[in-house]
């Protein structure tokens, strides 16, 4: 619609560190596990012509769009489309499993079975797999019980759950952005345990 406008747009991402933990606990074997656990609000462009919002679990933060071709990010979102830093989308070794279950009850990540962005039109997370679109309210409602288990770009593991997707307040007919609220647990020590 307005290309000039879009090219100038920087991804404005808002972080609300509602909860932020770096916790240490011991698993059954007495080994220390270091995890980052947080709930994040991510501002995501609505227009299919705008840049993606890229996120890094390790840094618990947004990755600047100029680094889109690097392994610094783990996943990206635009509208309701997910990119995973792999094959067609980036140089990273990321992958994802969209698993049914309750977030707190998933205590470890599987060793295999991670999906990649095979091509730009065959992405790891297929459209509509994690949300329901309500035609009357135009809302994107995350399906309950869908947990994203990520292998990150640098081979660590994280679990993530989208809790809600809201429209950034807007006037006029076309919304500019969506606010995604998600929570995640990132295992910093490289193990598959959360």
């Amino acid at each position, binding site marked *: 619609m307005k290309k000039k406008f879009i090219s100038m747009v920087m991804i404005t991402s808002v972080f609300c560190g509602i909860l932020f933990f770096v916790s240490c606990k011991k698993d059954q074997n007495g080994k220390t596990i270091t995890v980052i656990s947080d709930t994040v609000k991510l501002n995501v462009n609505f227009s*299919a012509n705008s840049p993606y919002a890229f996120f890094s679990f390790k840094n618990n933060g947004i990755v600047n769009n100029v680094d889109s071709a690097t392994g610094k990010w783990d996943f990206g979102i635009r*509208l*309701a*489309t997910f990119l995973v830093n792999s094959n067609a989308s980036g140089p990273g070794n990321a992958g994802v499993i969209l698993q*049914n279950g*309750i*977030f707190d009850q998933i205590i470890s990540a599987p060793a295999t079975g991670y999906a990649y962005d095979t*091509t*730009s*039109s*065959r*992405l790891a997370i*297929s*459209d*509509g797999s994690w*949300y*329901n679109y*309500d035609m*009357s309210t135009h809302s994107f*409602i*995350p*399906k*309950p*019980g*869908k947990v994203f288990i990520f292998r990150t770009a640098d081979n660590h593991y994280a679990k993530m*759950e989208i*809790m*809600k997707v809201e429209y950034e307040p807007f*006037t*006029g*007919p*076309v919304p500019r952005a969506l606010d995604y609220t998600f929570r995640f647990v990132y295992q910093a020590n490289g193990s598959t345990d959360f």
Partner: protein
Amino acid sequence: MKYFFLLFIGAFFTKTAFSQMDSVFAKQMDAVIVTATRTERKLSNVAVPAQLINNKIIQQSGSVRLTDILQEQTGLFITGGSSSGSPGGGIFGNGIQIQGLAPDYTLVLIDGEPVIGRQGGVIDLSRITVGNIKQIEIVKGPSSSLYGSEAMGGVINIIIGQPQKNVLTTSFRYGRFNETDANLSLALNKKKWGLQFFGNRNGSQGYDLDKTTPGNTVDPYHNYTSQVKISYKPSVKTQLSFSTRYFQQVQQNFYPVSDLNSSAIIPVSGNSITKDISITPVLSQQFSKSLRSTVKFYFNRYQFRQELSKQDDHSLYYYDFFQQSLIRAENQTDWKWQKNNNLSIGGGIAADILNTNRYDGKKRDEIRYLFLQNEWKTNERLIFIGGIRYDDNTAYQSKISPKLAVSYKATERLRVNVSYGSGFKAPDFRQLYLNFSNDAAGGYMIYGANEITLSELLKQQQQGLISAILQKANQLALLKPESSKGFNAGIQYRVNNRLSISSNLFRNDIDNLIQYDIIAYRGNNAPVYSYFNIDKAFTEGAEASFQYLFSKKFFLQGGYQFLITADKNVLKQIKAGEVYAREAGTNRVYKMNRWDYAGLPNRSAHMANLKLFYEDEKRGWSGSFRIIYRSRWGTTDQDGNGIINRRDELAKGFLSLNVTLSKKIKDFKIQAAIENLLNYKDVINLPGQPGIQPYISISYSFTKKNKLHKL
């Protein structure tokens, strides 16, 4: 035929027939219904759950549209849409739910011929006036063995009377929102000829329940219905009739929209015009005492056209055109081939032609069918009815629909009925012919099942339009009709000459429900959908009703239905622990159990009604007081699991009280009434319910008595 006349006189105009209320009651029990077997049978003798609403009840209830009267019947629910577009609310109008099956699965007939023009699967029943009808016949459970497609949840047959006297009736009604309803009907009989004319005008200025949202809840509308029926009986054995019906409605639409480019708010306005015309010539010949044959032709054309333009520059904003035509020839022959055996055999050919800007080009489906039904009275007590029908057509797979019913008269007062049969519904036009790409919302595509093939997908893949074809695409084929198997078991018990009760248990297993699924991905990663026979569901429940004449002046009717419904795939997933829900507010996710699942949307577990009718023939007073209850029902999913489970996904149950009072003075009758006395409103879930609605009506009836009167 004797019963037919008796009922007619009982239900229509004759004063003497009502002097003995007991006999009225007896007549109700002996009333004749044609829909259950396609032949005239006493209501108390049919083997399937059936219900009859006569003209008297309709008048005393003050009903003017078909929706008014149907919503007060046990187990029936009028479903409304979600926004403006039709009288009574609802973009697709008001349909009827029977035994928990959606309006798509109910066949609506006028004098035995199907009403067409479904929008979003729904025939808007407020299109149909009840100003000139003799009775409404309702048969519950599948009847596709007699009627073919759509007769899955039930059949509603509106019987237009053939008055046997010369009578002129006119009436006018005025109510809230400037609602008006005017009728003129004239019946003339002379020797072998009969003429019936009926005209109706109905209109309303509409209303707006929510001032904070743009536009009206219901836009202003007015409509006209005219009916002419000419009958000719050259001999006792031959009967000819010719009837036409014409309906036209204009609705003035007006609402603001926001302009995509400038963000300005621009009003759009225009008209929605609905036209419905039908012509039915019928020839019936009684060859002998045991053989009768009827040939019917039927032409029906339904047309909907909406044109909206922007008020600033008068440019076209929206245009929709939909025209459906049905041409049909049918024969039915009834042959009493043995003393205890009645055979009905019939068949027909039909063309269903669609012309619309919604799909690509003109669509035509040719239908051929044959049906056969035998009624075997083994003795005075036991009746077996077996029927089968074969429907063949060009647009979807053919279908065989059998049915078996047994009726056992245990005592003079008690009858037990059991029936099992199948029903089906043809895939709708969208499922067959849609060819839609939504380039605004992500560029997905939906193809009707007849619009795409695997080889077409492969071709598109070679052209680079399709990036991947999924396994599901291998299953692309002619759709099967959605089908059901229905079981009904019930009793009718006549306690005494004043009280009768009946109850029925039902179960409908619905299979091959059509749902879309992804068949491929486009070059831009957007999915391509088509339609498949995927889902399974069931509805089951119990129904009980009674009629009680507790004095010569008071007549009480009541009923209750309990209903359970579910999507079988959802139940399977819940059982496997694969379904989750999200708590409102806390966003906590938990695994759902069976009892968190509230079943199919728009179904109430409990529905009840209690109706008191009063008539004092001597003093000319009559009236009614009716209580209708519906418990909460599922609306839309809020927590993303696609099913109804949370309290905020349910609409509140409600009670509606309606009262009428009439006084007859000579040939005039004045009626005052209040609908929805409690002023119940639910802006979101019941847009067709505007709140309290008082009205007043006056009618005049002039009868010229003739010999038939003394029958």
